């Protein structure tokens, strides 16, 4: 007779533990389903966030016989916008970048990726040139150092030359208001 309460105790423990395990599994599933809902779920986090921007010296798009060293941009934050005339999403993003550049909140530097300079210039002639400076990476060699894997991609680099934020895919106003400007404010506060 003395064994009955103990046995009941064991089965209660087992019940509680297995219920907790099940709940944990459900919670994990729920988190996974929620995360898969995010539109940027396939965007990789940049390995460069919090690290110095890679040393980059590239020819200027407008004057290919001259090179430009991105390190000379230090002292003030800048936005590095990767695009190419071959990239349809860049065409969609272009008005957003242009409007943002007009606000004067940040210098917007263009990074023309794997593009024929003639095509890039024609593209800018057609849609407008919002950029402060445009470097041209025809081979795409330097882009590997930035961890760039396509276009459009956009980096925020602070006054010390540290990469603060990255966005993969076209920029829109929600991302600018919700992510870029807060990241810029953080960077300026930390200075």
């Amino acid at each position, binding site marked *: 007779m003395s*064994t009955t309460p*103990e*046995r009941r105790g064991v089965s209660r423990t087992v019940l509680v533990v297995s219920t907790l395990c099940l709940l944990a599994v459900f919670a994990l599933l729920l988190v996974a389903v929620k995360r898969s809902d995010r539109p940027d779920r396939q965007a*990789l986090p*940049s*390995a*460069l966030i919090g690290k110095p921007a890679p040393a980059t010296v590239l020819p200027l798009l407008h004057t290919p016989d001259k090179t430009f060293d991105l390190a000379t941009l230090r002292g003030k934050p800048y936005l590095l916008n990767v695009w190419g005339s071959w990239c349809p999403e860049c065409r969609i993003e272009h008005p957003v970048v242009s409007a943002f550049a007009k606000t004067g909140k940040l210098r917007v530097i263009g990074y023309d990726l*794997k593009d024929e300079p003639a095509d890039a210039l024609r593209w800018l002639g057609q849609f407008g040139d919002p950029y402060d400076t445009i470097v041209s990476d025809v081979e795409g060699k330097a882009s590997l150092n930035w961890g760039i*894997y396509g276009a459009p991609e956009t980096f925020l680099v602070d006054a010390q030359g540290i990469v603060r934020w990255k966005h993969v895919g076209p920029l829109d106003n929600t991302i600018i208001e919700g992510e870029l400007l807060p990241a810029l404010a953080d960077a300026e506060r930390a200075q």
Partner: protein
Amino acid sequence: MLCACLILLSTHAFAQVSDPTPLNFRDAAEETRFNALTHELRCVMCQNQSLADSNAQIAHDLRREILQLMQSGKSDEQIKTYLVARYGEFVLYRPQVERSTWLLWFGPVLLLLGGALAVWRVVRRRSARAVSSVDDGQEW
């Protein structure tokens, strides 16, 4: 897999051109090593394909870069470190053992140990009960 690539293509474009110049291996051993290495690395664009299998432009570029690094005398480890510094841990199919991946590496072992402990406790409790019931001399 194809689906994932297509979805990705629609949101994040890249030049989809086939490789104009094939990779030049110096010998069969180099090709074998290259194939082993690129099968262990994940394409950053098509997330569930290895670098060896992917036809994305970035995979072509990275394969070329890896062969160059190999031919300049870099070890597999150095090449992996090079890629992780740029594209993050994500490029490795076998993540490195470090604090953030402890759960991944040791989680299954912990689960197994936990299960073994639970079984052991139940067995011990049962045998203790069996002994005490023998002591009581009670009939079941």
